[in-house]
């Protein structure tokens, strides 16, 4: 009995958060019905004409839908992999550094791009990769013809993924570094006495020590990544790279906000939510299977 009363006031403390969640995240979900209507702003949600699945049928006739869905998944998956592996490797390398001062400096500097918004960074990127920009003049010294990077549909996803990883890896590195400090130094000493080389210590002590953190980051990024691309791609893309760079969010923005096709945009947004949901479920199943990580 004592336990239960203890729980009660925890629930009370949870209440404000729950109310916020319901008001901000759950209530607007009712707007999903727009996907099944011919939404008329004058009539509102309650009185707009009900058209069933027509929006979805039209969406699947459009060759765009398949393209943006595949683009979204392709870019998302590459970003997840990149944002997991690059910071991990970088953190492990930093961890092996003996000079603490170098480690601190490097850590701080790579962390900086995280604080810049994509609006600013996109301007910088467009200049750096411009036809007469530094990257092309560097290529020029090797006798390579200048490349118009942002007009190349085949390169665009990799520029997007590459720049996103470059922007964020410093931030994730810090999380890994924090996890690394929690490993008991006695384990390293013991391994060293047993004759383990540096590589062996890395493999058998360091990595198992931070597995939970890796899995946690992976799961969190899977849930978020379908939301994460809009600012970046919106500021960098152009019609030439629609075929590989147009994602669900940018498509919804153009259809809903620029072209006033509210219902079609909602239908597409709903599709995105479904994909997100599937991704989260899959990642959770994977996490519980391979890393014994459970939420429930």
């Amino acid at each position, binding site marked *: 009995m004592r336990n239960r009363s203890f729980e009660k006031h925890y629930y009370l403390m949870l209440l404000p958060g729950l109310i916020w969640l319901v008001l901000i995240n759950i209530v607007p979900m009712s707007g999903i019905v727009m996907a099944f209507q011919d939404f008329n702003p004058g*009539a509102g949600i309650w009185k707009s004409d009900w058209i069933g699945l027509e929006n979805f049928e039209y969406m699947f006739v*459009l060759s765009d839908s398949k393209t943006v869905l595949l683009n979204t998944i392709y870019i998302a998956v590459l970003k997840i992999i990149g944002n997991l592996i690059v910071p991990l490797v970088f953190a492990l390398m930093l961890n092996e550094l003996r000079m603490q001062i170098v480690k601190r400096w490097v850590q701080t500097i790579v962390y900086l791009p995280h604080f810049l918004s994509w609006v600013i960074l996109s301007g910088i990127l467009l200049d750096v990769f411009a036809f007469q920009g530094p990257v092309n003049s560097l290529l020029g010294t090797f006798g390579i013809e200048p490349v118009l990077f942002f007009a190349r549909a085949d390169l665009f996803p990799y520029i997007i993924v590459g720049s996103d990883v470059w922007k964020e890896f410093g931030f994730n590195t810090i999380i890994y570094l924090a996890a690394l400090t929690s490993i008991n130094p006695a384990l390293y000493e013991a391994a060293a006495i047993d004759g383990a080389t540096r590589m062996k210590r890395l493999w058998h002590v360091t990595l198992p020590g931070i597995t939970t953190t890796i899995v946690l980051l992976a799961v969190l990024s899977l849930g978020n990544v379908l939301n994460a691309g809009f600012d970046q791609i919106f500021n960098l893309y*152009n*019609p*030439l790279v629609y075929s590989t760079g147009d994602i669900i969010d940018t498509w919804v923005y*153009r259809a809903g906000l*620029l*072209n006033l*096709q509210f219902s079609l945009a909602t239908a597409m947004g709903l599709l995105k939510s479904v994909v997100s949901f599937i991704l989260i479920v899959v990642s959770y199943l994977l996490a519980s299977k391979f890393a014994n990580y459970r939420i429930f």
Partner: protein
Amino acid sequence: MKATKNSLALLTAALLITLTACSSGNQPPANGNANEGSGAAAGNGETAAPAETADPFGKYETPVTINVGQAIDPTDKSLPQGDTPENNQYTRHIKEQLNIDTKIIWQTASGKDYDQKVNLSIASDDLPDLVIVNDAQLRQMVKAGQVEDLTEAFEKYASPAIKGIIEKTEGRALDAVTFDGKMMALPSVTARGDAVHTMWIRKDWLDKLGLEVPKTVEELEKVAKAFVEKDPDGNGQADTIGITGQQAGGKLYANFLASSNNTFGLDPIFSAFNAYPGFWLKGEDGKPVYGSIQPQVKEALAKLRDMYASGAIDRELSIRKDAAEPVVSGKSGIFFGPFWMGYWPLPDAVKNDPKANWQSFALPLDKNGEFSPHMATPSTQFLAVRKGYEHPEAALKLMNLLVRDEAKFDVSVSLNHYPVRIVYAPVDEIEYSLNALKEVLAGTKTAADLDIPGYKLLADDATKIGKAKLEPFDNNDIQYWNTEDIGIWSRMYSIFVGGAPLLEPRNEVYSLVYSQTKTMESRWANLEKLETETFLKIIMGAAPVDSFDQFVEDWKKQGGDKVTQEVEEETKG
């Protein structure tokens, strides 16, 4: 969130109904007043005529408050200390003359942000009393029943000056706002000059390289290549651009929905092939056809592709963030745009390099040796009144006052601070002004001769032209201009240099329609995307020229045929 907005709207609506009860005594029998000519009405705007007589300039007896959404140019610093967008010389003038208080309920940066805010207001059914919208937005609002019918208010309250300006468009302006025989918004009327895109070229570069002004597309290509390869700016580096094209998000060519003011597009090159992508034309059998799927467009694209590959056109076409930048920094030799380039971007270009001699020509010519530009609808902006607003005639009074007093305003405070201002200009304003000002320079006319109704800035221009133009008066090269007062120079250079090509003979091509049909509302965005993507890819070498044929097929299949049918029905009626 939607639900709360809706109940809020209901609540306000309920409030408004109670309010309207107090002020519904408007029954104006006398419209003889309106026919007397603007001169008389303009003279005694002070006399507060009671609202019941339908006086276009009548002052309200009790103050009327209008809620507006206003676009503000964030770089505009013209408001004097202490004035605000809500309280400035224009709003005070309106209060004094009409007893109207304008209240800004939201403001955004002009341009894309404004459109977005209006779209959001439409979607949430939370509109200001008066709002400026574009064609697609107006259609959406009419469909949603969000706008007030202005037919009666226009009949009774529009001033003769405004009626005259609208009549001069030969029905085009009214067509754009008429739905089922009812006038659902006030159309703007812009000068024809905004629609004609001409070739702007650095004449000092031409002279330096010993070249002639290019007359055809072939010559244009040669000149553009010379500009790229022969170092016209003389800095020893290969950093110059031949033809600057549109920036990221810009349009390759104006289309029937946004038919004028397409800066940095390549419209004149298309029209030199008699290709009018984005416009609805009369086909050989007399039926409407869509310009973008005609064989002439394929020809033009093939040529543009060659020009792009040879470097004559900016490599960063459609990727560059700001197409004006190379013009301002003196790296570009040619671009296309309407007459008003003297306002922007040329002032900065001339500040950077006083010798940058930008001149404008009605070129290149087509195969018949004619300049055949596409022409615009005179109305691109619409002033809509929210459904249920109790003073729809206030919209007309605001515009009447604007047109009557525009010339008297001190325009060093940007006119954009006039609440919900849409442009009213006679269609031939630029050509007429140019001819008149030439006479002023020649001494055959004075400012006093030029106080002509409608041409509101002309008399003022006549007093200023002497400050900007130096002798010889028949030579418009940059060294014969005084750029000290860049504000005066901007307008005069626009009229004299930008306006000169408008006096040349031209073969005008109009679109059959300038607004969306029903199917377009849902399908057009995707068709347009298909078009933009295909054309850019062809020009920039990412797809073969023959992908045009596939595009034509896809376009027809994905709704184009249906849209064409609708346009046919619309043009029949």
